[in-house]
């Protein structure tokens, strides 16, 4: 039982960092990124590519971080020309292109079957690393959140022309937060790779991005604690419904479908009951109707 819990908490900590990085971009800065799995994947593929070609662990880490930083700026580049809705789909597209490349171009890192990387075999060590990373990232995010930079990002979330009019370059702010957030997610990805010991494209599909989004919005976008609470909640539903089978005695294929169904229903219910998320952003209320 203990190992099971340790593994679950480790995963929650790692995915919380991804949710946190999305929170920086979307919750604070309003960048609707539907490809947030991409920096995570890049971070994980750094070690994978390194391992597949006989490189060292630190080379893998460096490669992952570098790919994420460059990737972030590249994906962000069209944003000036696009309204948010479109950029959301561009980022989604970028993450899919990367995944499909990994599936189809086998020499990079094993194609569909993936690549094994060095594994942190002690579960407690893995847990410690994950919690350490989460704590460090929470502190970093908190410092940004409570700073003038965080305030500027919140203005940007609403009106980029206003930010420009006030004498700041909106693109530079976006690029900064994107690089920071993507490095964050890439660190989580690298840790994920080494904890699981295996990197394959199926871990980085669009569905994963949506799980991160679900966690963030359920937790409360714009609040840092919300990102963590939301991730824990989502993982909790996912894991706890596994016990449904033993408890219900229903046929196995029905149970599998019910699990997903329950996930969907709980998600909708939480939205209906707590519109602003489990841990809402501290904020001032404004009604939709203008004066």
């Amino acid at each position, binding site marked *: 039982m203990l190992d099971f819990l340790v593994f679950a908490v480790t995963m929650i900590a790692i995915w919380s960092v991804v949710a946190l990085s999305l929170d920086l971009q979307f919750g604070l800065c309003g960048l609707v990124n539907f490809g947030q799995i991409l920096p995570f994947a890049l971070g994980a593929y750094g070690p994978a590519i390194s391992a597949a070609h006989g490189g060292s662990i630190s080379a893998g880490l460096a490669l992952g971080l570098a790919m994420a930083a460059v990737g972030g700026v590249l994906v962000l580049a069209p944003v000036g020309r696009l309204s948010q809705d479109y950029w959301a789909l561009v980022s989604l597209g970028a993450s899919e292109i990367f995944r499909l490349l990994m599936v189809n171009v086998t020499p990079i890192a094993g194609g569909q079957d993936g690549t094994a990387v060095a594994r942190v075999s002690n579960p407690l060590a893995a847990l410690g690393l994950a919690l350490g990373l989460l704590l460090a990232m929470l502190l*970093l995010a908190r*410092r*940004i959140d409570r*700073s*003038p*930079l965080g*305030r*500027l990002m*919140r*203005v940007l*979330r*609403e*009106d980029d*022309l*206003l*930010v*420009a*009019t*006030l*004498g*700041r*370059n*909106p693109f530079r702010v976006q690029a*900064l937060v994107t690089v*920071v957030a993507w490095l964050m997610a890439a660190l989580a990805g690298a840790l994920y790779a080494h904890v699981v010991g295996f990197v394959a494209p199926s871990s980085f599909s669009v569905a994963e991005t949506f799980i991160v989004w679900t966690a963030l919005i359920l937790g409360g976008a714009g609040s840092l604690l919300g990102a963590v609470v939301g991730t824990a909640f989502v993982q909790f539903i996912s894991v706890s419904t596994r016990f449904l089978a033993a408890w219900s005695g229903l046929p196995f294929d029905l149970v599998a479908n019910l699990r997903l169904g329950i996930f969907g229903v709980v998600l909708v219910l939480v939205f209906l009951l707590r519109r602003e998320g489990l841990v809402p952003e501290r*904020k*001032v*209320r*404004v*009604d939709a109707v*203008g*004066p």
Partner: protein
Amino acid sequence: MLSVRDVTVAFAGVRALDAVSLEARPGRILGLIGPNGSGKSTLLNVVAGAIAPDSGSVSIEAVPIPAGRPEEVAARGVARTFQIPRLARRLTVIQNMMVGRRDQPGENLLTLLFRPGASRRSERALVVDARAMLARLGLIHLADHAAGGLSGGQQKLLSMGMALMSDPPVLLLDEPAAGVNPVLVEQQIVFLKSLAAEGRTVLLIEHNMEMIADVCDDVVVLDAGTVIARGSPVDIRRNAQVMRSYLGETA
């Protein structure tokens, strides 16, 4: 000195501005008036860098501004307001005021990480300044209210306050008095005069003729994208063409 040379702007065939030139000097308030749709706001947008003109140029102290780059124009000390106010609706009034100030140490990630003290000090000073300005605008009691919940007139005042936070040498105002109650307009007038007296260049668009007559040193009249008259407020009042097309009074 702010000078606009032969600026022309067309939108999908409509000439909003046609070879407009004007000059605004430090310490003086230049009024810009004209019928609806004559191109006043468009001209202000060109000066602020929000719209790149099709031809012509704008320069400050003889250095041309980067056209179409509002953030760089603002960095040159030009602050502006919008005819329809733009604010961060979900932030509080005081937070809106505080982002008005440029070059804050706390907006630099490295400072934030390695010299948090510098950021904290500048914040403390900034709050004091912002509150002082809010008090001056009669909005201090709303400091912690969401900006999006302000009434129409209050939003106008707040956006003027935001523009003033970075102590700009050049100020562009698009109908600051529209929707503001008469008593506050009187205070605005006093305020504007004091700003000019501090040596700032002010470009003011207004339909409120009393205000124009009261504060402006010079007036430029636009009609259908061209300048049809310029001079002192008194001269303009006497100009028959202006009377007809703009004031609607029979001379």
